[in-house]
């Protein structure tokens, strides 16, 4: 299937910041599941192991295992990146000039508090992510939750939430609810589904079980030189996203992580 998104799906993505694509890779999901496990096993067997163990504030000090560049590590997942379904959709959202922006695999035995995937990715440059969850997930089992509309990143709503949700420990003080009760929409998924979303969209996952598996492939628009200079000025002027307002957890992620890799 190379027909891309329908007009309805484009409108959903543009308005709410994400769209679920049920069964888009249903035919391939068994092979992709196997490939995911093989890639993780191979990376874990290296000396030193290349699977990162991460227990930051973002994950409420629980364990997430991350395998960067998973698409470069296994041909079956690598093939997804060039698949006409993804390429067509990326072109619909980002225009003719876009490029791959990395991939990652994760095994979550943790929650993921609220964040946008904007670490090391300037907000003004549009990035999208295709997420492949390999387990059946619902609201009470760790499905991703989105805060619709926060993809409109310059609105007061989005800016307030990026600021107020930045520290998971402060959310209850700020809003009077625990992080998992922040108003949001659960996006349930089954293996073979794909969730497409904007890096800017604030998201998280809560109440999940152990060993939830995900791999993601990202794309970004290519900015011309003038756009990039303008963006640098904008970032500098707003002292924003690579400074105090960055989503990088305290202590930082591995320098190998160059793009968003949230839940």
């Amino acid at each position: 299937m190379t027909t891309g998104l329908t007009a309805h799906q484009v409108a959903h993505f543009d308005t709410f910041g994400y769209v679920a694509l049920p069964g888009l890779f249903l035919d391939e999901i068994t092979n992709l599941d196997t490939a995911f496990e093989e890639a993780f096993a191979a990376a874990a067997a290296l000396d030193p192991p290349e699977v990162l163990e991460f227990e930051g504030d973002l994950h409420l000090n629980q364990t997430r295992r991350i395998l960067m560049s998973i698409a470069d590590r296994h041909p079956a997942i690598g093939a997804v990146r060039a698949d006409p379904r993804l390429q067509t959709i990326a072109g619909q959202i980002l225009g003719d000039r876009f490029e791959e922006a990395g991939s990652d695999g994760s095994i979550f035995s943790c929650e993921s508090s609220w964040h946008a995937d904007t670490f090391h990715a300037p907000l003004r440059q549009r990035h999208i992510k295709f997420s492949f969850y390999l387990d059946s997930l619902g609201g009470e089992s760790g499905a991703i939750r989105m805060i619709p509309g926060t993809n409109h990143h310059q609105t007061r709503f989005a800016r307030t939430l990026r600021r107020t949700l930045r520290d998971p420990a402060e959310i209850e003080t700020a809003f009077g609810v625990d992080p998992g009760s922040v108003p949001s929409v659960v996006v349930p998924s089954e293996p073979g589904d794909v969730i497409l979303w904007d890096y800017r969209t604030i998201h998280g996952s809560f109440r999940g079980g152990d060993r939830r598996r995900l791999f993601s492939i990202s794309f970004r628009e290519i900015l011309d030189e003038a756009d990039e200079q303008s963006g640098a000025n904008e970032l500098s002027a707003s002292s924003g996203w690579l400074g105090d307002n960055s989503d990088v957890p305290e202590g930082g992620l591995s320098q190998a992580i160059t793009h968003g890799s949230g839940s």
Partner: protein
Amino acid sequence: MTTGIATGPTLTEAQVEFFNTFGYLVLPGWFAAEIDDITRAFEAKFAASEPVLMDAANPYHVATDPAYAEHLREIVVPFVEGDDGLEWLVTDPRLTGVVEALLGDAEFRGSDGNRFNCDVHYHADVYLSPLRTRNVKVYFYLEDLTAETGALRMIPGTNFHLSPFARALQRDLQSPDHTESTFGLHGREVPAVTLPTQPGDIVVGDFRTLHGSFGGAPGRRLFTLNWRKIEPDAAAE
């Protein structure tokens, strides 16, 4: 009337911040002690009134049971004003405290009583109320309601009514047909937050916040009280 200084329980700073950010607030059990009396007063008021019937062509109201296609919603306006069993709510310190915390100086702008036999599509409560003026509505639902039985659904963030997100939805959710043609979705499938409630709970909503309800049983009862901030709001984005 202005609300004056509240003498009852009021909201925490966190609740005010929640309301200002997401456009609504649920206050569970705030009227649980009085809800039986309130419900009896609601029934008595309806029995003594001649409700107005919602126009069957109103695009926001859609009967899921064809038997109610011509009997979508009964409305009594005004509702609590002048009613022996309900008027006390206008000056109840819990409500005036909420209004004071959210709006500052405000004036009571009326009430309505309702029986719903239909879905209510997404809308903002901006009829006869300019968007630049901030209003809050206090909802008293008199049934146990969930997502499947007609609980109120809110779209957080649309209270920032001039934002691109809110404006897009004001346009694209303006009717069930627009929603279907834009997103390919029924209203109940639109991303939103459902607010389950039990009798005795209250919901406080900003007029600007897009909201609706879907899947409720016929005869769902709701009455609301409304307040308006005296000064226009200059910080609505």
